[in-house]
């Protein structure tokens, strides 16, 4: 059970030098098994296909070959068992926080009162109570992403896909959002696939960290994070295990980046 990713390959056509379209291999033979209720982070340099992988799991992008199975059923498109938190928040600017959060339920045909009740619960859960009728542009980046998280939680997905969700918020807010995500996840137990650029964020949140290498994107190493739960962010950050693991992830990434730089057609 869980998510099984087998031999995923994905190429994109893109404009190369001199306006020639060339193939760009985003993912090549990506394999990973994610257990139920597991928190897995994907980390790697730009161009390693982290985002593409999350999109393939969500069903927004179709792989060229390979397959993703959720509980044994192949993914063919977006489904109600998955909820996505987007890097750029993707909130409708003309809708209030409440209608943004209840939008996925509206899509599913949930009656108004019922979906608003659910949305209010999720808004409260992410600490946005009191902002139900505020428009996104009046919120800070961190608060917009809280709304984004509430929206993903509103559909009560078994799998939460988070594509660099805290990449666009400032460092302080990021720490708070991390703490709250830990708390929410430890309460709700969902499978989370979390894309990030931050070594510390990956280690702090995850059960396993998937280190990826670029050109073509594939798994370089899967690292277990044996830090016990429940985790308290401040305590974890000071623990030797956290420091060692973060340093190790950074060492691996450094190797990958330098190796890539020396390989023709890899560095950019």
């Amino acid at each position: 059970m869980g998510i099984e990713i087998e031999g995923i390959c994905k190429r994109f056509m893109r404009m190369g030098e001199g306006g020639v379209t060339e193939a760009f291999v985003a993912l090549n033979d990506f394999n990973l098994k994610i257990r139920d209720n597991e928190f897995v982070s994907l980390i790697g340099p730009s161009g390693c296909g982290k985002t593409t992988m999350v999109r393939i799991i969500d069903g927004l992008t179709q792989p060229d070959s390979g397959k993703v199975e959720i509980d044994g059923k192949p993914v063919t498109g977006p489904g109600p068992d998955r909820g996505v938190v987007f890097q750029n928040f993707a909130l409708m600017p003309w809708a209030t926080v409440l209608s943004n959060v209840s939008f996925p339920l509206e899509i599913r045909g949930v009656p108004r009162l019922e979906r608003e009740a659910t949305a209010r619960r999720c808004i409260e859960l992410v600490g946005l109570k009191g902002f139900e009728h505020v428009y996104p542009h009046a919120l800070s980046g961190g608060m917009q992403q809280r709304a984004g998280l509430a929206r993903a939680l509103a559909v009560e997905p078994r799998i939460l896909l988070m594509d660099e969700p805290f990449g666009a918020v400032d460092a302080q807010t990021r720490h708070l959002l991390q703490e709250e995500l830990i708390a929410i996840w430890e309460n709700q137990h969902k499978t989370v696939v979390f894309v990030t650029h931050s070594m510390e964020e990956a280690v702090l949140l995850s059960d396993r960290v998937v280190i990826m290498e670029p050109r073509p994107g594939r798994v370089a190493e899967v690292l277990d994070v044996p830090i016990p739960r429940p985790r308290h962010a401040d305590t974890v950050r000071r623990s030797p295990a956290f420091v060692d693991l973060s340093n190790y992830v950074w060492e691996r990434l450094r190797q990958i980046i330098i190796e890539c730089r020396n390989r023709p057609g890899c560095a950019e």
Partner: protein
Amino acid sequence: MAETNYRAETLAPTVAVTREEGKLSTALRPRRFRLSKVRLMQIVSIVVLLGLWKIISTQTSSLTLPGPVPVFVALVRLLFSWEFWHSLLISVQSLALGYAVSVVIGLIAGVAVGLISRKMGVIFDAYLIIGLSVPIAGLIPVVVMVFGIGLAARVMVVVLFAVFQIAINVVTGVREADRSLVEMAHSFGASYLRVFWRIILPDAVPSIMAGMRLGLGRGIVGMVTSELILLSVGVGRMVVKFSSSFQTAKLLAYLILIVSFGVVMMAGVQWLERRLTRWYK
């Protein structure tokens, strides 16, 4: 808000509430008359302009440029005259009908062109741009040949003036709809129809409203042009009548009134625009 155990941004709700209260109190407080710098400069510029007008008009014949006073007198007289309101009513008929038709066609055509792929859309874009740049005034005789000299012809001219402007803006709005929002909706399982109604169309509203505003401006020009060139009724007839009989003061007064009418109409559309795009930064 105090009962939430989230430390994040605990200050923010308080700030938001204070801002709300601030808004409330300014709304309740009787408005004091305050002259802003910009307003003052506006008044000064008008006074200077009127002064210059007065000085120049004393140097020239009243046939070419009457002074501000006779024009003002003519303006007040026109305002209370039957012929002004009657001419305006006739013109507004064709404007209202033509504008309504333009909005409907512009919206439907614009949405259709905007939704088809960008590559195919380019083919239609060319026609829209041609339609926008053709000197429509030159086509008025053709319109008259087809539609006669009745209301239909004048409506048609207004449509020709306004419809391309509206359609082009609708195309832009629909085509530039935020990709990440469209993907978000798809990701949560929205159908194409729902994506259109709930994402693409609302996202295009600022652009659509801009098109409606610009289209109205062109529609007003079209209305007067059609009446000036061939179809001598309404506003156009009055302009021709006053200018050919050298009643320059009346002509100027009349033009000022027509411009004011246009400004009021535009303000109406702008008001609607603001109401519909309040969420827009």
